[in-house]
């Protein structure tokens, strides 16, 4: 197949090898679990010049110690069953068991927005948890808030791991589409960490969005409805193949109220 013939392929056998092969990230197509990028190649939408396969690079594993959870970029979505809420429940609703055993946290975090439907279901959970992303790239290694990571282009970075303080509570509420395997149209995640509640929405734009106005309203009065009323301050829902902007605008406040009501 023409799309794969020309590619130079590196199969990294350690994290260090992966970082070296990634370099500045220019012209490198990273293949983690492959669930998103491989169809792009198969159908000729992506023609990699260099490909970096991470399956043998380590970078997997999920550790929980001293009140902090660290998840390697190559940890599978299935492995997130050991993560705190709302990451655990969010991960359980990604695709189906076979895909969850192949897809990775790093791949999900770096998923480019889909043209017809949202991608990156885990992003809202990671924003709600105030996660820190450790990555390598042109200016070496750095660690930053997941929001900053997503705002810059993840394309130029190689995610190494993601970590966050374990929350006191976490919850999620979502509109899921019943299918042979469910997928998520719209979701709200909330987590209370160190007394602070963070709220984020996914499926309401190209990437997950933190809902700061709703957070502020909730911090003032602890009133889930008051927070719900402010969610559209930060989120401008769009039309796509899954739902209309109108539907999303009506549903999002309900999800915020439900998620916050469940945040015990």
């Amino acid at each position, binding site marked *: *197949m023409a*799309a*794969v*013939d020309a*590619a130079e*392929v590196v*199969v990294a056998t350690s994290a260090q090898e992966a970082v070296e092969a990634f370099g500045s990230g220019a012209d490198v197509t990273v*293949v983690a*679990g*492959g*669930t998103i990028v*491989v*169809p792009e*190649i*198969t*159908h000729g939408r992506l023609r*990699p010049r260099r*490909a970096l*396969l991470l*399956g043998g690079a380590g970078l997997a594993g999920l550790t929980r110690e001293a009140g902090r959870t660290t998840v390697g970029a190559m940890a599978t979505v299935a492995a997130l069953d050991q993560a705190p809420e709302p990451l655990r429940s969010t991960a359980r609703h990604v*695709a*189906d*068991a*076979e*895909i969850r*055993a*192949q897809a990775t946290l790093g791949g999900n975090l770096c998923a480019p927005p889909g043209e017809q439907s949202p991608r990156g279901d885990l992003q809202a959970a990671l924003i709600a948890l105030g996660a820190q992303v450790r990555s390598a790239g042109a200016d070496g290694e750095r660690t930053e808030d997941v929001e900053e990571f997503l705002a810059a282009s993840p394309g130029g970075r190689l995610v190494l791991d993601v970590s966050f303080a374990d929350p006191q509570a976490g919850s999620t509420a979502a509109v899921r589409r019943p299918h*042979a*395997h469910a997928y998520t149209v719209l979701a709200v995640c909330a987590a209370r960490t160190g007394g602070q509640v963070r709220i984020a929405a996914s499926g309401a734009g190209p990437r997950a969005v933190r809902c700061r106005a709703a957070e502020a309203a909730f911090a003032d009065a602890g009133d889930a409805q008051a927070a719900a009323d402010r969610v559209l301050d930060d989120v401008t829902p769009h039309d796509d193949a899954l739902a209309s902007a109108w539907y999303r605008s009506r549903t999002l406040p309900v999800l915020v109220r439900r998620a916050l009501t469940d945040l015990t």
Partner: protein
Amino acid sequence: MRLTVNGTEHEVLSPPLTTLLEVLREELSITSPKAGCQQGGCGACTVLVDGEPRRSCLTPVAAVDGARIATVEGLGTPDDLSVVQAAFHEHYAAQCGFCTSGFMMAAQALVDRGGEPSREEIRQALSGHLCRCTGYVKIIDAVTAAVNGEVDTGRSEADAGPQGEDAVTLIPGSPA
């Protein structure tokens, strides 16, 4: 690169980013894994990679260099059906047959895992597989029978008898 497919070792010459599905079908002429959606949505291409069910359409062959691959070709023969094949036969769990090999390999992984999965756990394990003909009731019935060992494969009999002959009509491999 090397793959051991159904116990036979093969050297693979396709470019490293070629999907496992394409290597199996086009280079090795092993055609039970089907090219359905080719984007991970239908499960028709599922094979076992080192015993775990994986979508071969999502897997670059370089990512599974050296792995053991199992496909329907390795399950049984027309005269000697495996438990999963016999269960699908007994429960009329195939119609056009296009999705059947993916379902069978997912079912085989469940059987291999052992234990006594509930009907709901079986549904979850099969949830990545689409069937557009029969619906899922008969398929889930078949897999339930297979995991519970409630299947007559005829393997213990010297003469496979009528079941063995009937089974010929249901052998996967077509449509190729």
